[in-house]
């Protein structure tokens, strides 16, 4: 009897488990409604990007569609440069952040004493500072260091923010890995560093992959730092997008086309990475 009950429970689908009986239909409708709520702006964005400049205020009534908007934005050098810069900044920020966060999270997880405690406190204090409060000091610091409107000027603040946020998550990943493995590696001929690189890090790969994806998406979509810390030399896609609203008017059709272009890499990363994110964050 129990075996039958278990088998039938396993065979039940997602909806019937969450909302058994007659509530299934209602639950399914609610789920579809939520999905539509999130999908609708994206759909509207895509629709706007395909309308001519004169038709963007009548998207729902228009019948004329065009891909000229895409041609136009892709023919602008600043958009192409911004695409390239955003990709490079996102990738470098991810690599640098993970490099530091791995060691930082490992230290917080494995070592006790004044240095890890001080580091933990420092991270905590930085996390307590509102995000927007960092912007003005960072502007002056980057000006002073002559890195304003350069890769480094944007990379370093991003990496700093990521370290503060992701060190905690990384600590959680390493907490879930049995330290005996590292001890075994140390007895098997590794130094402490060797045990970290050859045993602890490979064991944390699911978590690292999840963080890499989140880190890349976060930097790709980031607007505030990019707006304040960059200018014409290092255009960033999110800022370039916003610049279609200017004193001469609002070019919604071009902004939408750029946004759709920006959406593609993010969508690829999300589709590729979602299973890793789910697996990694479950560790």
């Amino acid at each position, binding site marked *: 009897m129990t075996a039958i009950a278990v088998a039938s429970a396993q065979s039940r689908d997602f909806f019937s488990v969450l909302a058994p009986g007659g509530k299934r239909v209602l639950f399914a409708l609610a789920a579809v409604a939520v999905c539509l709520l999130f999908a609708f702006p994206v759909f509207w964005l895509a629709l706007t990007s395909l309308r001519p400049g004169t038709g963007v205020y009548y998207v729902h009534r228009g019948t004329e569609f065009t891909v000229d908007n895409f041609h136009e934005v892709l023919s602008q050098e600043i958009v192409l440069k911004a695409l390239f810069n955003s990709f490079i900044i996102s990738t470098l920020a991810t690599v640098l952040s993970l490099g530091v966060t791995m060691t930082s999270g490992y230290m917080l997880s494995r070592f006790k004493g004044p240095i890890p405690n001080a580091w933990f406190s420092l991270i905590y204090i930085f996390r307590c500072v509102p995000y927007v409060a960092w912007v003005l000091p960072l502007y002056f610091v980057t000006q002073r260091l002559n890195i304003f409107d350069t890769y480094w000027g944007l990379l370093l603040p991003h990496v700093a923010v990521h370290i503060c946020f992701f060190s905690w998550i990384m600590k959680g990943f390493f907490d879930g890995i049995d330290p005996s493995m590292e001890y075994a590696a140390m007895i098997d001929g590794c130094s402490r560093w060797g045990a970290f690189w050859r045993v602890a890090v*490979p064991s944390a790969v699911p978590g690292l992959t999840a963080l890499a994806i989140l880190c890349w998406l976060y930097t790709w979509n980031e607007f505030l730092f990019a707006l304040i810390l960059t200018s014409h030399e290092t255009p960033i896609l999110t800022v370039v997008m916003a610049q279609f609203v200017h004193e001469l008017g609002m070019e919604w059709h071009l902004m939408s086309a750029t946004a759709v272009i920006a959406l593609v890499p993010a969508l690829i990363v999300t589709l590729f990475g979602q299973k890793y994110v789910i697996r990694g964050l479950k560790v």
Partner: protein
Amino acid sequence: MAEVILTNVQKAYGEVLAVKELSLDIKDHEFVVLVGPSGCGKSTTLRMIAGLEEITSGTIAIGGRVVNDLQPRDRDIAMVFQNYALYQHMSVRDNLAFGLRNRRVPESEIGAAVARAAKMLSIEPLLERRPRQLSGGQQQRVALGRCIVRNPKVFLFDEPLSNLDAQLRAQMRLELKELRQRVATTSIFVTHDQVEAMTLGDRIVVMKDGVVQQVGTPLDLFRRPATRFVAGFIGSPSMNFLDMQLAAEEDQFVLHGRGFAFRIPNGRFAALGSHVGGVVCVGVRPQHVRLGTPANAGEIGLRGTVAVTEQLGDEQILAVRLGDNELRIAGVDPDLTLPAGTAVEAVVAAGNLHFFQGEGARITG
């Protein structure tokens, strides 16, 4: 192969001394078991030998070389951990080869060594699997293989059987004993299970609160426990203890318990003489008490009532009430029906009595 010598080794965590003045001489090829309750310092001692914990004071020598300042990798030891500590991202083959690769052994030799160890432990079909695809027993074998393959000077075992179920634990115990006959490396085995200690060890070190209570062969510990703690810890079911007032009468000692008393000849227990008028702790193993009446002058008769019976199938263990005390009797005929409250007579040979100073040392006689 090597001897391991610990001299006045201490480990302090702040103000707390986890291991106090530990000195131990482990001979080449010897299998020594460190046993004791949780927090007694046995695992800390093992980790100090491995180099995973720093030593506060004292020296540790392996194979005649003081290793206090050597990294774990330079001590030429191998260790099996409680939770196996297999490298989850590697296959069983790579787990076994890891230590040899770190030592830059040629791949051809590594292959041969891995094959030899795998054959010895019957894990050849598992070589391409990942650790998480193995059962607990198989993982334990791989962990053993990882040690054997390196042919180190010393094997260290940190409660390697405690994660296994009772049946598998008994099986692995046997396999470890068989393995010892083939690989006679100096071994130090930590456990809290006295059965493992008794069955595996050439010598046993009993520890409590960071202090060595007794070092000896399993039979030494069972027959002549040095302290009341060792007497209670070694042996199953554990020893009965009765706190009794000691008096002398002519050529006999009289021991007064709460609600019962018995006599023993003083010639045989001369060492008790200095404790007359005081309280001594009398210890007797449940296996050394039987139901019946004394057959000769060397036996002591005790009368009591059955409090509880534990049926084990091949024997019963009785808890018999003697005045305010309780005495456990092992090896009772399982077919005997003895409801609670039944009056029984028990007998114990005087030679099987142990005497301790209260909670402390054995009164030797």
